[in-house]
C-alpha cells in the first residue's frame, strides 16, 4: 500500500457516505493501518450534497485538514456531477469512481477528462443494491468497487469487517445482502 491514501466522498445526505468513509477506515485499522474518517459538517438535510473524507496510511497520520488533492474520489450519486466539481484537485494518478450505468468512456467525456491521466471507473452500485438489499443503498457496493479500482484492499478484509460490525446491529439477511453487494461490485467495476 502507498504511504498515504486520501479518499474524498461525494454523496447526498442519507446515502450512507459517512458510514462508508467510516467502514473503509475501520477495515484499514483491521489491517493494522493508520486511518482517519471525517464528514464535512454543515447544515445537513436529506438529499443535500455532502462530502466526507478518509485517510489511510502505514505510518501515523498527523494532519487535520480537508482533503484537497485526493488519490480517489467516490461519487455515490451521479446527479451530483452536474452541480459539484467532483474532479477538483484530484491527483494525476488518481481515480474517480461513480455510481452509474454509464461506461468509463462516457463518464470521462462528461467529466471533461479526455486526455487526462486520471482513471475513471464506473459501477452500477444502485442497481446492485436494488437486487441484493431490495433498496437503493449504494454505500456498501461502492466500498467493494473502490477497493478494486484503487487496489486499496482485497475483498476479504471488507467482508470480514462487515460481518463483525454489522453482526451487532443487523439481521443475517441484511448482512448477507451487504456482503453480496460488496463482492459483486468488487467484480463488476469497470475501470477506464
Amino acid at each position: 500500500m502507498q504511504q498515504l491514501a486520501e479518499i474524498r466522498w461525494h454523496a447526498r445526505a442519507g446515502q450512507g457516505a459517512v458510514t462508508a468513509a467510516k467502514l473503509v477506515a475501520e477495515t484499514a485499522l483491521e489491517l493494522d493501518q493508520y486511518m482517519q474518517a471525517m464528514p464535512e459538517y454543515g447544515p445537513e438535510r436529506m438529499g443535500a450534497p455532502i462530502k466526507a473524507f478518509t485517510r489511510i496510511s502505514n505510518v501515523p497520520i498527523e494532519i487535520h485538514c480537508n482533503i484537497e488533492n485526493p488519490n480517489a474520489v467516490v461519487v455515490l450519486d451521479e446527479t451530483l456531477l452536474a452541480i459539484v466539481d467532483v474532479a477538483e484537485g484530484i491527483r494525476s494518478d488518481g481515480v474517480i469512481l461513480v455510481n452509474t450505468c454509464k461506461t468509463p468512456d462516457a463518464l470521462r467525456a462528461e467529466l471533461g477528462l479526455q486526455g487526462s491521466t486520471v482513471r475513471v471507473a464506473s459501477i452500477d452500485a444502485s442497481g446492485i443494491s436494488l437486487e441484493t438489499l431490495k433498496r437503493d443503498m449504494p454505500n456498501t457496493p461502492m466500498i467493494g468497487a473502490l477497493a478494486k479500482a484503487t487496489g486499496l484492499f482485497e475483498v476479504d478484509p471488507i467482508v470480514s469487517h462487515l460481518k463483525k460490525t454489522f453482526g451487532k446491529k443487523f439481521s443475517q439477511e441484511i448482512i448477507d445482502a451487504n456482503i453480496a453487494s460488496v463482492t459483486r461490485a468488487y467484480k463488476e467495476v469497470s475501470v477506464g
Partner: protein
Amino acid sequence: MPTQKTIAATGNAVVAEALRQCSPDVMAAYPITPQTTIVEEFAGFVAKGRVHTEYVTTESEHSAMSACIGASAAGARVVTATSSQGLALMWEELHIASGMRLPIVMANANRALSAPINIHCDHSDIMGARDTGWIILFAETAQEAYDNTLMSMRIAENPEVLLPVMTCLDGFITTHSIDRVEIMDDESVADFVGEYTPVNALLDLENPVSHGNFAGLGGPFFEFKKAQREAIERSRKVITDVAAEYSVLSGRPFGMVETWGMEDADVAVVVIGSTAGNARHVARQLRADGVKAGVVKVRCFRPFPFAEIAEALSGVKAVAVLDRAESFGAEGGPLFLEVRSALYDSSERIPVVNYIYGLGGSDVRLELIETVFKDLSDIAAGEEAPAGLVYLGSR
C-alpha cells in the same frame, strides 16, 4: 501492566469512554454541538448499567454546572462536558467551582462563539474562560483527549490541588473524526484513578462545614484568591508527576509543552490543539529541504508553562505563535500574549510574530503553515518582522 486495545473511534467517543472508566458519582450535563455525542454516549452507558452514575439532565448549561457544583460540594466525583455557548453560559459557575475548590472534570469541545453563528472549531470559548481558575489541558488527537481525561481526574482530586480541570478537544476536527486510539482496560484505569476521598464534603455530617460563604470587607476573600493561586502553582508538579505515572502505564508521554525538532531549530511555531499535527507535518518536510524548523505544542494552558516555553524557544531566530482565538484590541491573541511574556526575561530578543488562524472552523491547509514558516525563514535571514498580527488565510 494494562491491557490496551486499538479501536477506531471519534474523540468524543473516547472521552465518554474515559469518563465511564473513571466511575463518576454524578454527571450533570446539557447537550450542545459538537459536544453532544459525549453526553449521548455517556447517557447510553448509564442506561445500559455500564456505569453507576447519577445522570442529571438539566435545562441549560448554567444549571448543569450548578448541579455539578452542588454534587461536588456534597462529596461526589463529578464530571460534565460542554462547548462554546454552553461554556459561556456557565461562566459565573466556572468561577464558583474553582473558588469552592471543587475537583470537577469537564470536557470542552472547542467551538466558535456567536455572532455570527458558527458551530465549528476555534478556541474562543475556552480562551474566554482562561481566567476562571480552572486547570486547562488541550488535546491534539482523540488519543490525547482520552489520555488527558484520565489524567484530569487524578490532577483535580489531588489534595495539593483540589481545582476543577477542563480537557479541551477541537470541535469536529477531533470530536467527530474517527481516529486510531488505544484504550486501557477498566481495571487498570480504576487502579490509576483510584477512589475519591472528598475534602470538606457537605454530606460528612460528623464534620459540618459550609461552602461559598460571604467573605466581604475584612473577610478572607483576598486570602481565598491567594490560596487558589498557590494551588494552581502546586498543580504544576502534580501534573508532571501524574503524567509520569500515566506514561509508565500507557506508554504515552505527556508534557505541558511538547516539542518537535527544537534541539537545533532556527524557526519555530508555537501552537495548541489539532493544528500541531499540521505544523509538525510541514516542519518535517521543510527539514528534508534543509530548513531547521521546529514545533512547540502547548498541552497545558493553565497553569501556563512559562519556563518550559522559554527553554524550548531559546536559541531560535524567529518564532510564530498561532492563535485560534481573538483578543480584540490586545497586542495579539491569548497564546501570543503568554508566549511573549514567557520570553521577556530572556536576554535574547527573539522576534515573535502572531498569526490568527482557523476562526469558525476555517480549514487549516498545509500551505498556510508553509507560509508561516516561509515568513519566519525570511525574518531569520534578516528581513523585518511584520508589524502587528497577521490574519492567516482570511479572504
